C-alpha cells in the first residue's frame, strides 16, 4: 500500500501501526469509562452487579475493538463507507416496518438473542459516507448547489426515518453532525445562514408536526414546576439531585436522591445527575473537564490530518461525542428538554458503549493513516 501513497511515511506493519495509535487518548477514554463504572457500582448500592461488572467487560472489549479497528487498513473503511450507510438505511426502514416497540417508540430490531438499534449503525454510516463523499468531490464544487444538495439528502433521509420512530434526540444528533461535517468540508457559510433562517420560519410547522409527548417535553421543560409529579418529574428530581450535591458532594454511595430512587434512570440517561450529587461541583466540573480534554485532543488530531477523509472521520467522532455530552449534561441540569440521550462512556448500555468505541476506533484508524492521500483512480477502484 505504501507505494501508492505520495506523501509521508505510512505505518506499514502492524507493529508500526500500534506505535502510531494515540495511546494517551485511549487512556483518557478508559479513565472516563472507569469513572462511569464506579458510578454504576454506587448506583447498585455498592454492588458490581447488575451494571458495573457488565460495563467493565464492555470497556475491555471496547478498548480492544478500538485497537483492532485502528490497525485495519484505511482503504477498508473508505470502501465500506457507502455500504455501511446503505446498511444503516435498510435497518432504519426495517425498524419502522418491524421494530420492537418499547415505551411508545420503535427503536430496536430483534435478531434472535441480539437486539440492535439501527440508529447506532447509522451514526457511523453517516460520518463515513460524508467523509467518503467529500473525498471524492473536487474541492471547487463543494459549494455548488447540486453538490450541496446530495449530502443534504444523505443527512435528511436518516433524520426523517429516525423521527418516525420517534427519536428526537438522535435526529437532532444526525442533523447536527451532518451539517457540522458539511461546514468542515468547506461548504459556503451562506447555506448555513439561509438554513438557519428557513428553520426559524418553519419552526411553527415543526411544532405542529411533533408528537404529543415531544411537545409535552418541550412545554414541561419550559415550566417543569407546573406539573412536578407528571412529566416535569424527571427534570425536577434531576435538578434536586445535582443541586443538593453542593460543592463537594455527598460522597460515593452517599447520594440520597439517587439511592432512594427519586432520581429516575440513575444508571442510564441521568447518570451524570447522580455523579454530580455524590461528587459535587468539584467532581462534576472535573468530569466535564475530562470530556473537554477528550474533545480538544480529537480536534487537535483532526487538525493534524493531511488526509481530508481522516479529518472528517475524526471530526465526526469528535462532534458526535461532544454533542452527546453537551445535550446530556444540559438535560440533567435542566437547560434543555429531556431527549433521552446517554452520556458517552458513562451511561450504562452496551450498544451506546460499542458505538462510541467503533467511532473512536475509526477515528484512531484515520489518525494512524493521517498522512494517507488517496488518488481519484484509487477511489474508482474502491467503489
Amino acid at each position: 500500500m505504501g507505494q501508492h501513497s505520495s506523501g509521508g511515511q505510512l505505518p506499514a506493519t502492524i507493529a508500526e501501526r500500534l506505535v502510531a495509535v494515540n495511546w494517551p487518548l485511549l487512556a483518557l477514554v478508559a479513565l472516563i469509562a472507569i469513572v462511569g463504572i464506579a458510578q454504576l457500582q454506587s448506583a447498585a448500592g455498592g454492588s458490581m452487579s447488575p451494571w458495573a461488572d457488565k460495563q467493565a467487560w464492555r470497556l475491555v472489549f471496547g478498548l480492544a475493538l478500538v485497537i483492532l479497528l485502528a490497525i485495519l487498513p484505511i482503504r477498508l473503511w473508505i470502501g465500506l463507507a457507502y455500504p455501511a450507510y446503505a446498511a444503516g438505511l435498510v435497518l432504519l426502514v426495517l425498524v419502522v416496518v418491524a421494530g420492537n416497540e418499547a415505551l411508545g417508540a420503535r427503536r430496536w430490531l430483534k435478531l434472535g438473542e441480539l437486539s440492535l438499534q439501527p440508529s447506532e449503525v447509522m451514526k457511523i454510516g453517516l460520518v463515513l459516507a460524508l467523509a467518503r463523499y467529500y473525498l471524492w468531490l473536487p474541492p471547487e464544487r463543494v459549494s455548488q448547489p447540486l453538490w450541496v444538495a446530495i449530502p443534504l439528502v444523505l443527512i435528511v433521509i436518516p433524520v426523517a426515518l429516525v423521527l418516525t420512530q420517534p427519536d428526537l434526540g438522535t435526529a437532532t444528533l444526525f442533523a447536527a453532525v451532518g451539517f457540522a461535517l458539511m461546514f468542515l468540508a468547506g461548504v459556503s457559510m451562506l447555506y448555513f445562514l439561509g438554513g438557519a433562517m428557513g428553520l426559524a420560519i418553519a419552526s411553527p410547522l415543526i411544532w405542529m408536526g411533533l408528537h404529543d409527548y415531544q411537545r409535552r417535553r418541550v412545554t414541561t421543560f419550559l415550566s417543569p414546576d407546573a406539573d412536578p409529579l407528571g412529566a416535569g418529574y424527571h427534570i425536577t428530581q434531576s435538578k434536586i439531585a445535582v443541586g443538593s450535591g453542593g460543592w463537594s458532594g455527598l460522597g460515593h454511595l452517599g447520594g440520597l436522591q439517587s439511592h432512594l430512587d427519586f432520581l429516575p434512570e440513575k444508571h442510564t440517561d441521568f447518570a451524570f445527575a447522580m455523579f454530580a450529587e455524590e461528587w459535587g461541583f468539584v467532581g462534576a466540573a472535573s468530569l466535564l473537564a475530562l470530556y473537554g480534554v477528550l474533545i480538544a485532543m480529537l480536534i487537535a488530531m483532526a487538525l493534524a490530518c493531511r488526509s481530508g477523509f481522516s479529518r472528517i472521520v475524526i471530526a465526526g467522532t469528535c462532534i458526535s461525542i461532544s454533542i452527546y455530552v453537551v445535550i446530556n449534561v444540559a438535560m440533567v441540569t435542566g437547560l434543555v428538554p429531556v431527549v433521552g440521550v446517554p452520556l458517552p462512556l458513562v451511561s450504562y448500555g452496551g450498544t451506546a458503549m460499542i458505538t462510541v468505541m467503533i467511532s473512536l476506533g475509526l477515528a484512531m484508524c484515520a489518525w494512524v493513516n493521517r498522512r494517507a492521500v488517496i488518488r481519484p483512480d484509487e477511489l474508482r477502484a474502491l467503489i
Partner: protein
Amino acid sequence: MLGLGQTGALGLLGARLYHLQVTEREHYARLAEANRTRTLAIPALRGRILDRTGRVLAGNETSIRVVVVPALAGRLQDVLRALARLVPLGEDEQAAIVDRARRQPPNLPVVVADEIAFEDAARINLLSSDLPGVLTEHFARRVYHGGAAVNHIVGYVGAPERPALGDDPVLRHPDVRVGKTGAELGLETTLRGHAGRIRREVDARGRIVRSFDDGRAITGTDVTLTIDLEVQKRVMQRMSQERRAALVALDCREGEIVAMASTPGYEHSDLSSPGRGTTEKSNSRLADEPFIDRTIRGLYPPGSTYKIVTALAALESGAVAPDEPLPCSGAFELAGHTFNCWKRSGHGSSNLVRALAQSCDCYFYEAARRTGIERLAATARLLGFGRTYDCGLALQRSGIVPDPDWKRGRYGRSWVTGETVLAGIGQGFVLTNPLQLAVMIARAASGLAIEPTLVIARPEDARGDALPLPVERRHLDLVRRGLVAAVNEDGGTGASARLDQEMGELAGKTGTAQVKRFSAATRWTERDHSLFVGYAPVAAPRYAIAAIVEHAGSGGAVAAPLVREVMQFLFDRDAPPGKPVGSRRS
C-alpha cells in the same frame, strides 16, 4: 471555530453546574430533604380525669394489638393467612383488611386484631421472620369508671374531625382521640399532652428506609375535678326520680362546682350500641335526650328566680326605694295590655322583701318598667347571665339576656316596654342555663363575682380571689332578706325548701317558668318548668344550688324540696348530724 463552540458549550455547562450546586445549593438541599422525609406524630397518652378524692373517672387501659404494615408485608394475603393460625382472624376479616390496606398509604399500619393475650403477642414476635410487616404494639384505650353519675361532666373522646391544614399533625394519626364533650373537650389542651415525633426516611415508593426518634411523647396532665364521685352518685340517684331535670351546686366561696346532674343520664354503652335510635325502646328513651347535659346546654326561661336580678337592678338604679310599697291588684296594665300576677286576687301593697318572699309579679312588672331594660340587662350580666364560663366544661350555651341591641340584631325591630315588663319576671326573651342560675344565686349570696370551676387549681395556677360585686351592700342585704323570707317566713313561696333548724337557714327563690303563654296545661310538654335557686347557711353562705325540673309545675312544689334535700345531704356529708354547723368551718 468548532473548538470555540465546544469550549463555549462546556463553559456554559460548567456555569450551570456552579449555579445549581454552589449558588442554589441550599434550595435544592431543602427540596431533597423534603423529598425523602416524612414526619410521623405519635399521640401522647391522655391525662387522667380524677374526682376530688383521687378516684379515676377517666383513665387509660393499655392492651396489645396486632398491626400489619402493608408496605413491609410482601403479599398481604399470605401474611394474613399465616397470622390466622395464631390469632382469630376470619376470611371476611382478612378480605376487609386487604381492602382497607389498598385504600391507604402502604406505610400506615392496619389493625389486625385488638386486645390479644400476652402469650399470643409473644408467639407472633417469635415467628416474626415468617410474618413480614406484622408488629405487636401497645395501644391505649380510654376507659371511664364513673358511670351515669359523672358521664355528662367527664364527657367522652372520639376520633377527631377531618383536621384542617394548620392543625397539629398528630390529629391525622388513626389512634388519636380528642375530647368530644364535657371535661374531655373542655380540658383538651391539658389532657392531650405533647405528641412524639418520628422522622422517617422513605424512598420514592414511600417505603421506610430509616427511622429517627425526634422526641418522645409526653403524657398529658392529670386533672382533678372539684366533684366527688360519691356525692355525684347520691345527687344523681335523687335526680333520677324526675323525668327531665338539672341541678348545679356551687361552693359560694370559691366557685368550685360541688355537684352537677342532668337527668336522664346515659351510660357509655348507649353511645356505641349498634341499634342506637332504631328500636322502640331506645326511641322513647331518646325522646328525653339523655346525651344533652342540661346543666350547661339546657336553656330555660328563669321565671321568678330572675326577680333577684330585677330587685337588685331596681334598687341600684334608684327606681324603687328600699321600703317603697307597690300595689298589686292581681293584674298590671300597660298601654292597653294586661299582665297578670300569678295570684289573681292580688298581693295588695308590698315592699321589696315581701314582694320577693311572695313572688308578687305586679311589683316586679312595675319595678322593671321603672328600671328600664338596659339597667336590667346590665345587672343580669353582673350576676352571671348571658355568657359561658371557662370552667373546664365545653359546649356551654350562653342563653339570652335581652336588650334593645340584641332585639334589633335578632329580629330587626325596636324594643317595646311590654318586653321589659316580661323580662322583669324572667319570661319573654330571657333564657338561662342551670349553671348560670347557680352562679347568680352564689354571687347574690356571697356578694363576690365568683367564677365557677370544675378543676381543682394546682398551686402554680391558682386564681386570684373573686372580686366583690360592684353593688351597694345594703341593696344586696335587702335582696337576701327577701330570699330568707321566701323560705323561712309564712306565706313565702319557697317554704318547702326550709331546712331543719340545726342546719341553719336556707334562703332562696322559687320560679315557675311558663312554657306556653296561657297555660291550660293539658299536655305534659306544655306544663310549666319548676325552678328553685337557694343557698345555705344564711349566716355564712357555703353552698348555692340551682335546680330545674322540666314540666313539673310550680317551683315551690317540686324544685324547692329537691334543692333542700341535696343541701341537706351536702351538710350531712360535711359533718355527721349532731355536731353544730359552726364547728366544721375553717
